[in-house]
């Protein structure tokens, strides 16, 4: 044990700083991306004054936030109040240590990476709870409690979907999830050739839908932005924060958004692996760093697409109520995620070909959508509203009667 691996430490430290710089850039780009996407959906221009196409607007915002006065409510408890944003941010940041951007581009590869991600991403809720509790504001308390109550209803589906992936790949390492894996259990060899050929989105579409919906709830984005709903709890846990500390919350929110999008890509859309090897597209043999760079670019491109989907949701949907979210989580997402998990286990156990999983999943997905739509259609019944008209003169003239009986 006296041999201390200094190289590894140095790599990790440099990696952490690099990752921080990278993620800050990503967050800055995401704020611009979100504002532009929303603006396009809402038929307006969005930021357009600072820099070309408003590209420097996020920098101006950051500068404003950092130079603002940092106010602490008199009745709040100092240390906890200040530590809450740090807890939220650190947990969001730590997740990224084990997320691979490409085969070699990962700060700290871990064999149990998936479990690590699921575990660490939950810690942020503690920060939200502390922020809500120590702000000495009732709205913040409500927001913090909501965040904690929400947790259980989305965390279980996420974990179970991730477990289904682990069953399929027989590994919890994210690189294996993308590149494929081969395990020998007794005499049986379970192998999977990597997502380059078939992304998991085609194998378990059910898992994909559940993961994206539960992921949205984890992020607290529309339609599940319940814990910081502006029109109800006025920002929830963030209500009393200002200046740099609020900016840290903000940073964590966007990093989390990016991590869920990145996980969607890694778990379901093949991560950095190109649809066909880059060599075959460019026609020449590529160096390793070139392949990696192409992989990172492709991965980031796909991740931004998923983030764009989240922004699209935000421009489209109203917000659910907390009890409706929990009912949705417990009654729909959790059963569906378990169905997905059990089907996957059966397919792997009996060594059926993977397309059987697709044939199982698609009818269940369509059935679920059908029942959901039918339930809504029953509630969304416009026939409760009827048109009335002025009665004919024979019926007494100036009064309202149902349409068809008037003149």
């Amino acid at each position, binding site marked *: 044990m006296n041999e201390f691996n200094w190289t590894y430490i140095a790599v990790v430290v440099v990696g952490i700083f690099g990752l921080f710089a990278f993620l800050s850039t990503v967050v800055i780009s995401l704020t611009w991306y979100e504002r532009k996407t929303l603006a396009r959906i809402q038929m307006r221009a969005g930021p357009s004054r600072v820099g070309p196409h408003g590209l420097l607007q996020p920098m101006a915002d950051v500068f404003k936030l950092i130079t603002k006065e940092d106010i602490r409510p008199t009745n709040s408890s100092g240390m906890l109040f200040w530590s809450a944003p740090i807890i939220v941010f650190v947990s969001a940041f730590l997740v990224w240590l084990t997320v691979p951007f490409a085969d070699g581009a990962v700060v700290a590869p871990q064999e149990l990476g998936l479990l690590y991600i699921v575990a660490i991403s939950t810690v942020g809720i503690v920060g939200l709870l502390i922020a809500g509790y120590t702000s000495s504001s009732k709205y913040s308390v409500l927001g913090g409690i909501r965040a904690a109550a929400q947790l259980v209803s989305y965390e279980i589906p996420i974990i179970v979907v991730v477990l289904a992936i682990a069953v399929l790949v027989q590994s919890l390492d994210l690189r294996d999830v993308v590149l494929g894996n081969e395990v020998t259990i007794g005499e049986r060899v379970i192998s999977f050739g990597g997502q380059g050929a078939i992304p998991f989105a085609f194998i378990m579409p059910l898992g994909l839908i559940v993961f994206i919906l539960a992921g949205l709830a984890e992020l607290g984005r529309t339609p599940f932005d319940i814990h910081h709903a502006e029109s109800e709890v006025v920002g929830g846990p963030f209500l009393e924060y200002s200046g740099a500390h609020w900016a840290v919350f903000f940073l964590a929110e966007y990093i989390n958004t990016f991590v869920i999008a990145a996980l969607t890509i890694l778990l379901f859309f093949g991560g950095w692996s190109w649809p066909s090897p880059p060599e075959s597209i460019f026609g020449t043999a590529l160096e390793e760093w070139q392949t990696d760079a192409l992989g990172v670019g492709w991965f980031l491109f796909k991740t931004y697409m998923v983030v764009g989907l989240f922004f699209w949701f935000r421009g489209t949907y109203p917000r659910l109520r907390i009890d409706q979210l929990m009912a949705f989580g417990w009654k729909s997402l959790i059963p569906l995620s378990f169905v997905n998990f059990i089907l996957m286990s059966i397919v792997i156990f009996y060594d059926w070909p993977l397309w059987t999983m697709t044939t199982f999943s698609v009818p269940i997905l369509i059935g679920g959508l059908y029942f959901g739509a039918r339930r809504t259609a029953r509630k969304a019944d416009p026939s409760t*509203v009827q048109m009335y008209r002025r009665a004919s003169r024979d019926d007494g003239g100036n009064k309202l009667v149902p349409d068809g009986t008037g003149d």
Partner: protein
Amino acid sequence: MTESGITTNVIDKGRGMADMLINMGPQHPATHGVFRMELALDSEMIVDVTPHIGYLHRGSEKLFENEIYSQIITLFDRLDYISNFNNELGLVMAVEKLMDLEVPDRAEYIRVILCELNRIASHLVFIGTFALDMGALTPSLYNFRDREKILALFEATSGARMMHNFFRVGGIKQDVIADFPARVTTLLGELEAGIDEADKMLSLGEVFVERTRGIGVIDGDVALDWGLSGATLRASGVPYDVRIEEPYSVYDRFDFGVPVGSAGDCWDRYYLRVLEARESIKIIRQALQQMEPGPVQAKVRAIARPPKGEVYVHAENPRGDFGVYLVSEGAESPYRLKVRPPSFCNLMALRDLLIGHYIADSVVILGSLDIVLGEVDR
């Protein structure tokens, strides 16, 4: 009084055990102005509500008594500040009724067109802010875009986007611009498309229905007892519209429908307004057809002096039954001018509606009542 300065008596008279008192407003994004509610909560469930109004009180009704009638019109603009023409109409009708004035037909038609356009503008604002209360950002921007087109027409007609001061005792200030009918016709086409867009985006949307169906239900009888009016009353299944029951102006010359709900919940209250906006378009089309050239102002003295007497006039505003009670001593200012603001009366049912709902529903229910604080507080 507790430490934070909120009275605690609301717990004593409440219907259950409250474990938290929360003060919503007057600075809260979802209270539509400066309305304030004290909510007694059992976790997220509302146990009791104490509404507080008066943050926008300007003493309008006392001011009326010291102004001449043409000045009062400007004050009426500021009551319900998103349906200004409808307010003005209420006042001038009261004075005209007391003076027994015959208003030229053209003036009446222009009044109706402007009032119905204003109704559409007001309903567009309602739909947008209602969606915003539920966290849907986009409809509000779409609807404010369409409303802006209406306001641009108002500006071309009266010189002001909102505080028009355009109606006069016995007519209107001046005839409309030459291309008014053409502009209105174009505008109506755009509005129809805009209303359809908002309707498609919201009305039958899964989350929207989930949030509004069965929320804030009020029965027809109870609604009548509270004195509700307008779409809020009709949503509960009471077919009552002043434009039909006691036709004023030239409303008896148009064929239009009045949507009436039956569920009495937030969804019905919302959807009625979508349909009402469409019916308003029909009214405007008919008015444009029937309108003929002619004078727009009856012969009235520059400073109107209604004879001694009293009169009550009411009209269907976008928010409900807008009543004006005028007592004149024969002077150039009224002896007393009392306004029955529909927002104020509709707000009265709030406590009954809120108790037993979640805190998230409180903003939806308050939004569905469609109050304007300028009118509530006066």
